[in-house]
């Protein structure tokens, strides 16, 4: 998937040799999805993989809006949630009427649900981009979330609507009761959706979405109505968000108003942005990382939300391109063969940076656990929150780490400049 940058510097050079690499990447992804649960077979990791898979589709669908079309939405969970609800209703109906619908097509139903809502409200929503769109999406999000508590017969109040995924027609002897079967169902849809969404970026519409993102005014003068482009993008985003919602409904066997809420919308914004919106694979990285953090951090620290905030602020300030942006920045250097000159400075900078990060963690945990709680376990070393030695250690790490890190990062920048100059000379960097 790494050969999918939007502003690819070398897409054309790759074009001929790229086809093989292109299919190779997807085959590799498919193989990885198949093998993963065989390697990590505990129930816990299966649950995690399933959630990560759903998060990937959700984040990719969000990036159709944010990264591809430049639409900042604060209500993307609406389509996700409505897709989930429709999926649950269809599952229940199929079970009670004995419709011959196998479970694996249910996510498609979710997708249709998400798309139908986008079709309905999208035209007035996408009239304008920018702040107006952001605020309308916020308003629609709040409205739908609130209405879901009023329209009880559809949304089941705040306890939601439950379903039983095993009650549908079994397919090839699979009942989808065990999590492993659900995992493979999700993995299948992750692959299909990711390929479809990647393909979408390679269509005329996908390209024009980018053009609308960069310069909606100019698009009008090359024959396109940016409003229509945004509307179509919004529908596609809704469709794939609905698929993610349908999968969630299958995974949890319940749909409730929390699906539609601001938390979900914020979560997908987080994932997508942290992963990087400029590259197709960015949201995938973001979804993996954020879901993993969400599952893991909560059992390590009670103030996970603070770490989320700090990570997010850090990304916005220092790497607005997200993780994918950081990675792709090195691509010209790799091609020019000058990455090697940068790595030593990275290694040097890593030590004080790590110390600084540890210092921050120690400080946060010290404050969080000052009034009671387990001792802090940092790299196996126990620290007691009320002990002055802990405070001193934190202070030394933070201040010392910061000062040294600043110097070492300047050296990284110098090394970078040198490497980039060479890369530019060799024609790998504009």
């Amino acid at each position, binding site marked *: 998937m790494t050969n999918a940058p939007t502003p690819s510097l070398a897409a054309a050079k790759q074009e001929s040799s790229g086809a093989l690499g292109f299919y190779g990447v997807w085959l590799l992804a498919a193989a990885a999805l198949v093998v993963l649960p065989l390697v990590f077979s505990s129930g816990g990791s299966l649950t995690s993989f399933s959630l990560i898979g759903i998060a990937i589709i959700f984040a990719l669908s969000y990036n159709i809006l944010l990264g591809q079309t430049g639409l900042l939405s604060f209500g993307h969970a609406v389509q996700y949630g409505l897709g989930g609800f429709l999926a649950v209703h269809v599952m229940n109906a199929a079970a009670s009427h004995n419709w011959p619908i196998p479970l694996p097509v249910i996510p498609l139903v979710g997708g249709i649900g998400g798309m139908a809502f986008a079709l309905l409200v999208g035209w007035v929503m996408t009239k304008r981009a920018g702040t107006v769109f952001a605020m309308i999406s916020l308003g629609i999000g709040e409205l739908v979330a609130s209405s879901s508590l009023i329209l009880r*017969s559809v949304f089941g109040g705040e306890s939601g609507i439950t379903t039983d995924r095993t009650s549908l027609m079994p397919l090839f002897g699979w009942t989808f009761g065990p999590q492993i079967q659900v995992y493979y169902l999700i993995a299948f849809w992750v692959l299909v959706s990711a390929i479809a969404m990647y393909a979408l970026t390679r269509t005329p519409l996908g390209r024009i979405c980018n053009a609308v993102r960069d310069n909606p005014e100019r698009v009008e003068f090359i024959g396109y109505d940016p409003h229509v482009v945004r509307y179509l993008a919004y529908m596609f985003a809704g469709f794939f968000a609905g698929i993610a919602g349908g999968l969630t409904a299958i995974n949890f066997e319940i749909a409730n108003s929390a699906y539609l809420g601001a938390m979900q919308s914020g979560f997908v914004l987080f994932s997508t942005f942290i992963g990087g919106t400029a590259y197709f694979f960015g949201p995938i990285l973001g979804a993996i990382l954020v879901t993993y953090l969400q599952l893991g951090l909560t059992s390590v620290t009670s103030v996970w939300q603070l770490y989320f905030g*700090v990570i*997010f602020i850090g990304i916005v300030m220092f790497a607005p391109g997200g993780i994918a942006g950081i990675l792709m920045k090195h691509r010209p250097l790799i091609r020019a063969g000058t990455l090697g000159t940068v790595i030593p400075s990275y290694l040097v900078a890593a030590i004080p940076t790590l110390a600084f990060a540890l210092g921050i963690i120690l400080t946060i945990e010290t404050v969080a656990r000052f009034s009671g709680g387990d001792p802090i376990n940092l790299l196996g070393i126990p620290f007691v929150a009320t002990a002055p030695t802990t405070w001193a250690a934190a202070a030394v790490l933070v201040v010392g780490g910061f000062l040294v890190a600043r110097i070492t990062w300047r050296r990284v920048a110098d090394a970078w400049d040198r490497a980039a100059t060479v890369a530019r000379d060799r024609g790998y960097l504009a």
Partner: protein
Amino acid sequence: MAELIVISTLNGVLFGMLLFLLSSGLTVIFSMMGVLNFAHASFYMLGAFFGYQLTRWIGFWPALVIAPLLVGVVGMGVERYGLRNTHKHGHVAELLLTFGLAFAIEEIVSMIWGKSPVDYRVPAVLDFPAFTVFSTNYPAYKIFMLVVSVVIFIALLVTLKRTRVGLIVQAALTHPSMVGHLGHNVGRVFMLVFGVGSALAGLAGVIAGPSLVTQSDMAAYLGPILFVVIVFGGLGSLPGAFIASLLIGLIQTFAVALNGSLASVFGPLDPSLGPSPLTDIWNVTIAQIAPILPYLLLVLVLIFRPMGLLGTRES
């Protein structure tokens, strides 16, 4: 009926002014910098907690002055070390920075003051009923809040329209590079404005804290409605925010006062129809949906008049 109208109007105006108190800072920041500050409600919360803490140490009145200043300093720090560096990446990045900040501030506050509500009380001087209408008391503290809101509105209006600082601020908004060339430090102007906006939020926190619940999740409850106010009134328009606050206050209050539902107007549906979305809608009262009316207004306004009531630009 007269009683209901008089009391609802009074309540609506009081609530509307509280909304304005909260959204004035947000509007100032937006009108000046074009930044939608998601952390605004967090600054408001910081104000409330600073106010609470300082009230315990040195009393309410000194706290009323010092806490907003502290919040202003925090705001200036955020502008100087955060937003300024993010500015080059565009408004979305700025907005996301404040988004992350809101998360962090909430957790920091709950780390320091805990997650339960704190006992932040109305100062004794103002803890008496100011007047009574139809045997309903109006506490002096609410009148105090109203007065502060109006004073802030007038002061801001005068500052922005009549003083040199205001002119520079207005000019920096439309022609930042020009103002820069004229020898004003646009960066410092921005920092100051962000500080003032945050301080206003802080002031709102100090004042609203005792009247509402001072708790670490108070920001999350009020955040979205503030956006409704400033978008509804017109992004960047102070009079717009003022009018929008009043309108939203009144609409919500009157909606609560009304018991009507479709069922009460057209009679109940045939019970044989069973539960369906129609019966849900049929039986829901206006009072029940009162607090979500602002969002409906927001969506409608943005669709039909994207610049809001008194706004002049869309984004």
